[in-house]
């Protein structure tokens, strides 16, 4: 199987869907002539031309709203946010229009569009550019939220998202763009809403998504090597829809839970997961559910401090040991 980067996997997904469906159009700031601020779309303009690969001015509300409107008439816009943080400039278009359109029209209209881009901290770009709005997006019925943590999932989930008939917010990670992994050539679909057990274990379940769950994989290796603890690691991959079954099966197996995510702790995905787990697997819990999140404050710029604010392999390892006390 070819080994490619997360960035290339995303590009392959878009290229394959561009080939497959003439209604797919890729749109965003600097995605064409500039090759993409993070080079995800590099080469697509040369291959597909300006009708399919559309450079936009800096007008998130207008071009996301345009994408919503165009999706109502049958296009499948895939809109890049240079930073996912810029979603807030288009909040009304996403959460009033895309999310509610089907409902307010009594099912007469649907909006098959994808809004994708990096949603992460850790690159010293300060609070305005480091938002991780998974829970804010997933809070809205009508919206789907996907967060791939590996190159293979980046491709398989993006292809599924583009074919989906509901609006999907697809959150990537600039730090993962250069990560490599095996990715199937050609048709490779990962269904939305299917979690993956990355590593089997028996002592506790570490559950989360995005870059934090990749840190958990490293923490689990250390836990096994240094502490003789076998942690199970579950990557959610998709927030809404959510694979409750895989999560609960793991909890029933290990009886201890550590939730990890890069977002802030209040009203976050892990907070929701903790609620679901206590409600549906209370009798299987041998310890309180613990969480590792970012420190609850706007994202700090200062590089060494940002490292401390974000989850880390070491914080996850320490929290796992606490969970097992």
């Amino acid at each position, binding site marked *: 199987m070819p080994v490619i980067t997360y960035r290339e996997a995303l590009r392959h997904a878009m290229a394959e869907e561009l080939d497959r469906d003439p209604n797919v159009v890729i749109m965003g700031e600097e995605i064409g002539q500039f090759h993409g601020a993070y080079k995800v779309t590099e080469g697509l303009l040369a291959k597909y031309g300006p009708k399919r690969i559309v450079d936009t001015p800096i007008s998130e509300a*207008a071009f996301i709203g345009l994408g919503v409107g165009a999706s*109502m*008439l049958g296009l499948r816009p895939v809109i890049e946010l240079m930073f996912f943080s810029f979603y807030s400039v288009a909040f*009304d278009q996403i959460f*009033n229009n895309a999310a509610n359109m089907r409902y307010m029209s*009594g*099912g*007469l209209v649907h909006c098959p569009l994808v809004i994708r881009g990096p949603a992460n901290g850790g690159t010293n770009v300060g609070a305005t550019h480091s938002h991780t709005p998974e829970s804010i997006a997933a809070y809205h019925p009508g919206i789907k939220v996907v967060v791939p943590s590996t190159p293979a999932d980046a491709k398989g989930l993006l292809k599924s998202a583009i074919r989906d*008939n509901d609006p999907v917010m697809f959150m990537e990670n600039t730090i993962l763009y250069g990560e490599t992994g095996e990715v199937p050539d050609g048709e490779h679909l990962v269904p939305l809403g299917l979690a993956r057990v990355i590593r089997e274990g028996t002592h506790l379940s570490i559950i989360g998504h995005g870059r934090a769950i990749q840190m958990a994989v490293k923490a689990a290796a250390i836990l096994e090597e240094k502490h003789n603890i076998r942690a199970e690691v579950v990557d959610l991959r998709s927030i809404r829809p959510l*694979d409750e079954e895989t999560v609960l099966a793991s909890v029933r197996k290990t009886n201890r839970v550590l939730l990890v995510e890069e977002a802030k702790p209040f009203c976050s995905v892990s907070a929701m997961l903790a609620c679901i787990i206590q409600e549906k697997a209370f009798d299987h819990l041998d310890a309180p559910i613990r969480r590792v999140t970012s420190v609850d404050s706007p994202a700090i710029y200062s590089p060494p401090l940002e490292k401390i604010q974000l989850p880390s392999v070491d914080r996850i390892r320490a929290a796992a040991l606490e969970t097992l006390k």
Partner: protein
Amino acid sequence: MSKKPPSTKNAPNYAYDARRATINARLDGGEQLALYRVMVRIRRFEERCLRAYQQGKIGGFLHLYIGQESLAAGCCSVMDRKTDHIITAYRDHGHAIGVGMSMNELMAENFGKYTGCSKGKGGSMHYFDPTRNFWGGHGIVGGQIPLGLGLAYALKYRGIKGACMAFMGDGAVNQGAVHESYNLAALWDLPVVFIIENNGYSMGTSQERSSAGPSLAQRAEGYGMNWDIADNGHDVYEVRDKVDRALRLARDESKPSILEIRTYRYRGHSVADPDSTYREKAEIEEYKRTKDPIMALQNSLVVERVLTDELIKKIDAAARAEAETSALFAEQSPFPTPEDIKKDVYWEVDNPADRKSVGSLFFD
């Protein structure tokens, strides 16, 4: 008191006679009557809505279009029903009737009934009928404008020779998303007509207290876009002529434009508003007396002998009866069920046989 914006390109041209414009000169008596009938039907429908609202049958807001009927009737009458599209804000009753939606489904929607056009899920502000190229009915001021841009974009992308009329009120022109849309429309030559229904007040704030610049439409110049003003929005012929020109520019040359149509609403921003803090009753009465759009057309059709007293009464009685029937239909229709609360949220949930994703989509 009101500072009237300076004259427009057309206003000083006293030779302009909208009735003689090509699009109007060819109208036969039947077509003229159809225009008149639509305007009467909009007004009678809304008057019946008002009564239902006062009786507590309609919840929330009710934004009435009374006084502005010539706009929706005129604009919809020049649409190409196959390839032109339309989207508007929350004052949407006139456009819905204009494109041919039935009073029954509209009144039922207002009553929150399952037989409503949006199954009682949208309400008065959110009428939809994609089969008639009518894409809502939107509640947030100016929020529908990028969507209208997207409809135009899709038409151009798919090589369809049509246009989108994106309606907004005079309050929407100061929203950022509207200006971003102007820029994209002009930058990409999209076939969209931005129609500003300028009734003089954004809720209770007059144009002079809210909008800088000589006129709302002239802002188009900043984007190198065509613009025009229909000063006599109460004249359905003028509305038709100006909209038709803008639509042809969009369809034939894929050029966007802004058309500001001056009009007036007789009721408050919504029925719940006091409507006494920002304008004098005399102002309303003066407009009704001199510029009522239905009376204007009625008078000209009587002169042209297309309308007779007898026909006026007949059309009015039919419109009242239709509105009354719609209220009865709405009253007798069922409400949505508790199960309906979670339908029409996700396409996939409503089409389980075609569902590709797995996992939970709801969390209660």
